[in-house]
């Protein structure tokens, strides 16, 4: 079976005045058809940069993909020309962003904005276009689609706007949807509604999901598998059940330890010291070493992703045979 998205050894760097940052360093991950996969980690660990590299949307003046492959349904996106890439975006992969207010154009009505990818990729016009726009609004469970299609973004609530963004992203029934913290800007009850809408519409269209988040609760509710990212590298890969039951990498353990959970006494809540290292001059070997409670001498060399159990792997020397 061909994976919906198969990233192999991706490397991306950002050139700044202070030096070159290897923001994505040999990242490999896989999303199977119909699967929902989470990419988690602290702010600044390279999650969003991974998404932008897949979409090839990062600013070409400073950001460069220096190696690896991004296979979408078996086809490598890295060597595509800008024109070819524009045909892929919005059609085979699309993206839902964090803040539903700023990612909608304030001066165009909702119908026009949903119509954008329909006109661009499917060549729909006139009545057919209008019909499809209303269908999409219904797909994301907007009750009065006609009214909403005529509205402007500022006339809608945050939850509605985020559902509109989801509708826009799903217009062409893409193979893969990348959702970059889709609910961070919403309050908790609306979060649940939006996630529910997202989940059912993805199932309806058979679209795979790469969910970028730092909210472990959402991961538990939405996803099948998890990749934990730290300082531009994959620290751990596991199924959702395994990652919560038995996190292997010390970073994953620390991340989960700092989440408040109803099934644990608040006393067990721990705070991880330190912060993500400066990627212009990262620590040699394992990048988590300076913050790791189990740091050993061998950690000065790069750890490979070592399989632990059937579906789990951790880039940590604790698990070497």
């Amino acid at each position, binding site marked *: 079976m061909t994976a919906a998205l198969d990233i192999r050894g991706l490397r991306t760097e950002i050139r700044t005045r202070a030096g070159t940052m290897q923001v994505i360093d040999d990242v490999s991950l896989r999303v199977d058809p119909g699967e929902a996969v989470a990419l988690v980690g602290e702010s600044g660990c390279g999650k969003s940069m991974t998404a932008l590299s897949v979409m090839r*949307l990062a600013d070409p003046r400073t950001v460069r993909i220096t190696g690896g492959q991004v296979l979408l349904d078996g086809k490598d996106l890295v060597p595509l020309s800008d024109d070819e890439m524009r045909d892929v*975006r919005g059609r085979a992969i699309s993206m839902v962003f964090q803040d539903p207010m700023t990612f*909608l154009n*304030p*001066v*165009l009505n909702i119908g026009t904005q949903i119509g954008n990818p329909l006109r661009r990729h499917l060549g729909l016009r006139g009545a057919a276009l209008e019909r499809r726009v209303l269908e999409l609004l219904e797909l994301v469970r907007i009750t009065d689609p006609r009214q909403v299609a005529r509205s402007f973004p500022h006339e809608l609530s945050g939850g509605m706007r985020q559902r509109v963004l989801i509708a*826009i992203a799903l217009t062409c029934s893409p193979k893969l949807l990348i959702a970059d913290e889709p609910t961070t800007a919403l309050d908790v009850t609306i979060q649940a509604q939006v996630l529910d809408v997202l989940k059912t519409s993805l199932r309806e269209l058979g679209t795979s999901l790469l969910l970028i988040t730092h909210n472990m609760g959402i991961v538990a509710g939405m996803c099948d598998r998890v990749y934990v990212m730290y300082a531009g590298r994959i620290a751990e890969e596991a199924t959702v059940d395994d990652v919560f039951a038995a996190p292997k990498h010390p970073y994953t353990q620390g991340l989960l330890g700092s989440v408040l959970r109803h099934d644990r006494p608040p006393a067990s809540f721990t705070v991880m010291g330190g912060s993500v290292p400066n990627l212009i001059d990262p620590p040699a070997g394992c990048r988590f070493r300076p913050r790791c409670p189990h740091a050993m001498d061998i950690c000065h060399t790069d750890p490979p992703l070592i399989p632990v159990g059937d579906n789990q792997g951790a880039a940590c020397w604790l698990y070497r045979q």
Partner: protein
Amino acid sequence: MQEFIYQFKKNRVAVAGAVVIAFMVLLAIIGPAIAPYSPYAFVGPAMQPPSPQFWMGTDDLGRDVLSRFIYGTRISMIVGFLAAATSVILGITLGAVSGYFGGLVDQVLMRTAELFQVLPQFFLALVLVALFGSSYVIIILVIGLLSWPSVARLARSEFLTLRERDYVLSVKALGLGVGRVIFFEILPNAAPALIVAATLQFSLAILLEASLSFIGLGDASYPSWGQMLNGAQQVFRRAWWVAFFPGLGVFLTVAAFNVVGDGLNDMQNPRLRKL
């Protein structure tokens, strides 16, 4: 739109300006139907002062000044509109491209714009009209080509900030083409500032056409306000009305466009907005 009208109405001066513009536009459209005489015909004694028969008097050849004024409105408005349209379309296109792409394209376009800006506009217009002849087409093109840089610089500065907005990233993520992103997604967001610039371009164009005509470089085949002023130079001390009315037309129209432009500009500044 209702909100727009409500806000605009609070600025009395701008409303007065809008009324003047509306009147001039109306006059330009229905003018020939209400003009009492032909603008070219000798209809009475020369240099009659304003009277019930000739409301604005007659000029040195015995033509009706009112009829000529009405036809002149038409010419001045058309020339103003087409010249402003030329400069606004040129300015927006070049400014948008410059601001959106940046880099070398931006450097080349902006240096060109600066070159046009440092040349004395009026004298360049004189030279061009003298070289290529003084038909209205040439006059419109010359005015348009000379006044695009200010619009282009404004459009560029708007695009420099707007291109970094999140919604631009989100439409790029949908695979929309560059032209679509520039003209359908970003441009509407830059419209408020550009509309103000366009009204000012309009008044500048009318003024420039009147100036060219006044010194005798206008298109003599149709009367414009500037043409009438040119003709009035000889008789000004004996027949003030020949110069006064076309001068008033230029003054009122240019002033009206300026106050409307200022009014629109103030509306966009929330700190100057009254409740």
